[in-house]
């Protein structure tokens, strides 16, 4: 197990390094100029040149890349301030929102999927499937605005901004995240539920499930011991890939609910050609993504001894 994790961490480091190169050099194709982006269209070319020089954006690419590597995470072009104190709180906010959505949507959608699978073809299955899939097709900016208008403005039950006033307790601040979380739950529920449902249906039809039933195991025990362990394997992969989105891809929800997370930060950095910020943001999301996949793989192997053995060989 230890060797497995070490090997995965080594691979992750190489992946991150390649990612940093890709972002840096591919990012050069983005049109625009960092100095012009800060100073606006009306600044004189001289002032733009001066700022580019101060920022170091006029140096050769290799030298810029080296400077960035050696000064990680460096200073933001756009904000002219160290990146750490901007990025870390933004990541914290993103993780908080993502985790909140995660703890709601994962149990909900797995339970929904299993219930649907156990009732294949019955009205319960139909309702869960149709509701789930309809939710997935509604974009966050539509469901978000409807929620704001309904619960925030018409009824006035919930705050419409995700950022709580300073000094709010942790539990109190979760109230501010309720509205932003609902669109995410809607988008993810149908997806994860479908995977859980398909996996369960498949497992229920398998030989081992039939054997377990035939040897006289009670239905509940059969589902817990034999069906779920197998049916949830693909679901875990789906959840892991969606966690990356939950941490780094919530730009729409962050914009709508005025929540400065890492997703918005990266998008702004890309539009302003703020390379140090862009690099740091993308790599952070990359690290989160890899950690989550690693955790998924470990739990995968815990559920399925065959993978554990294959890795240890």
């Amino acid at each position, binding site marked *: 197990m230890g060797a497995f994790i070490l090997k995965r961490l080594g691979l992750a480091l190489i992946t991150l390094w390649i990612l940093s190169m890709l972002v840096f050099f591919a990012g050069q194709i*983005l*049109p*625009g*100029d960092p*100095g*012009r*982006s*800060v*100073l*606006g*269209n*009306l*600044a*004189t*070319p*001289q*002032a*733009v040149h*001066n*700022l580019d020089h*101060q920022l170091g954006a006029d140096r050769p690419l290799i030298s810029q890349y080296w400077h960035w590597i050696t000064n990680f995470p460096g200073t933001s072009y*756009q*904000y*002219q*301030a160290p990146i750490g104190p*901007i990025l870390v*709180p*933004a990541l914290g906010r993103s993780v908080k929102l993502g985790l909140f959505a995660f703890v709601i949507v994962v149990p909900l959608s797995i339970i929904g999927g299993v219930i649907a699978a156990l009732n294949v073809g019955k009205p319960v299955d139909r309702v869960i499937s149709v509701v789930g899939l309809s939710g997935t097709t509604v974009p966050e900016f539509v469901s978000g*605005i409807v929620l*704001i*208008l309904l619960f*925030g*403005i018409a009824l*006035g039950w919930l*705050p*419409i*901004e995700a*950022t709580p006033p*300073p000094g709010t307790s942790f539990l109190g601040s979760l109230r501010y995240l309720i509205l932003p979380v609902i669109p995410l739950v809607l988008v993810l529920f149908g997806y994860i539920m479908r995977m859980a449902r398909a996996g369960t249906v498949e497992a229920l039809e398998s030989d081992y499930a039939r054997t377990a039933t035939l040897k006289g195991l009670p239905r509940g025990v059969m589902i817990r011991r034999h069906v779920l362990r197998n049916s949830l394997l693909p679901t875990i992969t789906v959840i892991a890939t969606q966690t990356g989105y939950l941490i780094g891809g919530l730009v729409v929800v962050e*914009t*709508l*609910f*005025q929540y*400065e997370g890492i997703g*918005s*930060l990266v998008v*702004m950095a890309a*539009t*302003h*050609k703020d390379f140090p910020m862009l690099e740091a943001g993308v790599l952070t999301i990359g690290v989160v993504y890899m950690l989550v996949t690693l955790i998924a793989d470990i739990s995968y192997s815990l559920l399925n001894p065959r993978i554990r053995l294959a890795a240890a060989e």
Partner: protein
Amino acid sequence: MRRKRNEQLDGLRARCTELENHYIDELVAGDLSRRDFLRRGSIIGMSVPFMGAVLGATDPASALAAPRARTAAAKPKSGGTMRIAIQAPSAAVNPLTVADAGGLCMLNQTGEFLVFDNNLKLALQPMLALSWKASHNATVWTFKLRTGVKFSNGKPMTADDVVYTFQQLSNPANASNALSVFKGILSPSGVRKVNSHTVAFHLEAPNGNFPYLVSSDNYNAIIVPKGTNFKTWQHSFVGTGAFKMTSYTQGVGATFTRNPHYWGSMPYLKGTSFKFFQSQAPQVLALEGSAVDVIGQITPFGATQLLHNPAYSVIRLKSSNHRELSMRTDQAPFTDARVRQAVAWTLNRHQMVEALLAGYGLVANDYPFAPSFPSTVPMTQRTRNIAKAKQLLAAAGHSKGISATLQTETYEEISQLAQVIKQNAAAAGINITLNIQNQTAYYGTTFGSSPWLDGTLSLVDYGSRGVPNVFLNAPLVSNGAWNAARFADPTYDHLARQYFATSDLKSQRKIATKIETLLLQQTPIIYPYWIDGLTVSTKRVHGLNPTSIAQLYLNTAYFS
């Protein structure tokens, strides 16, 4: 009676400079309205009580004509924290480099200017300078500073701080945004301390409107203490204003509290809390959902439900905020002025103002003189005339129509405006292809690497200014830094230089007429409309003091 008034006037005249007397002449001759006299007088540094006395001596009925503060809706109440939604500053809040609405609104929360361009009253007002005077040819401007002013760090403000601020702003070695205003007018060596509370600006060329360049119009020019490191200014926000910064978080918001060292009367509000938004729609929702009390600046496009809702107060400022559609005068088929005119005649400007601005704007003619500038001389308005456009195209040898690509940006209503232009022009056989990019890509770097400056047709945003100088200069003079039309006309260059050097309104109007006629004939740039500045708040909010370039002073704001 008349004789007595003349004596009074003569007595006042004896205290006046040549230029001031010139304005009084224009007022007496009826060339200047009372409003314009107050406005022009404020530029050259005549005090409001003095101008009131002059007006009284020329016409007793107008003795009270001096502009007055609006009567407040309710008795000001002290206390409370006002929550304001603004566009998130897109870059560091660095007084040298700030260029965006959110950033310049942050600067003015703690920073003050020598002169305040009061857009509500359309006049310059003393802020950190108490009075100002020009030399007879408007090449040296002397500003007397307010005494007893302290920065939020407790240090007194003197001429040294003002000299430092303007030397940094005008230094070509700095990444200063104000260079676009000072280039060719002011260099660091021209900023000189006269005594501890007097500063003289020695200009490179005469400039009759110089006080505008050290006013809130030139949003970078807040006065900072001598020796300030502009890059780290955002950690302290040190300034002379009514508030001082208590917290600033990039992309999230900022809070301010009363500045105990403030020279003026203490603000009513205990504090202010700014929330940063990336776009307008969430700001509208935030106001409707009572998450904020004020939206600092709003564009009518997409906010009509708010503007027409009686539950909110709207402050509407006439402004010179506008869009410019440049046509490359060095690229066929736009080398022919008739083709450029043809495009202009296809536009339905009234419809644009109604549809894109919800009526919160004014149609423009094809010259950069906004109706709010006193020197503007209105010409016959261009309206939609497809027959005329087709006729002009045919005369230029393009009876089968023309095709061109229009480069533009995603910003406020601009991409929609580009669509309307495309549709309008199609009726005359002008086939426009749109290329819409984000702002960073669109602005590019400079000539040769900027869709904005290189596009055959290009549509760009220009923020509001109190005088047309900026609009007349870089986009239109030969080799101008933002001359996207590549317009090069020696007659125009000469007229523009003349206009900048002129101080008296009568001559300015004479030159303006010539410039307007020339630009209508040449039409290198089409100006579709002037956009009003709008600030929206709940009915509980009073005493806001916004400008048409997104600044918002809150020292007189209060809740009822």
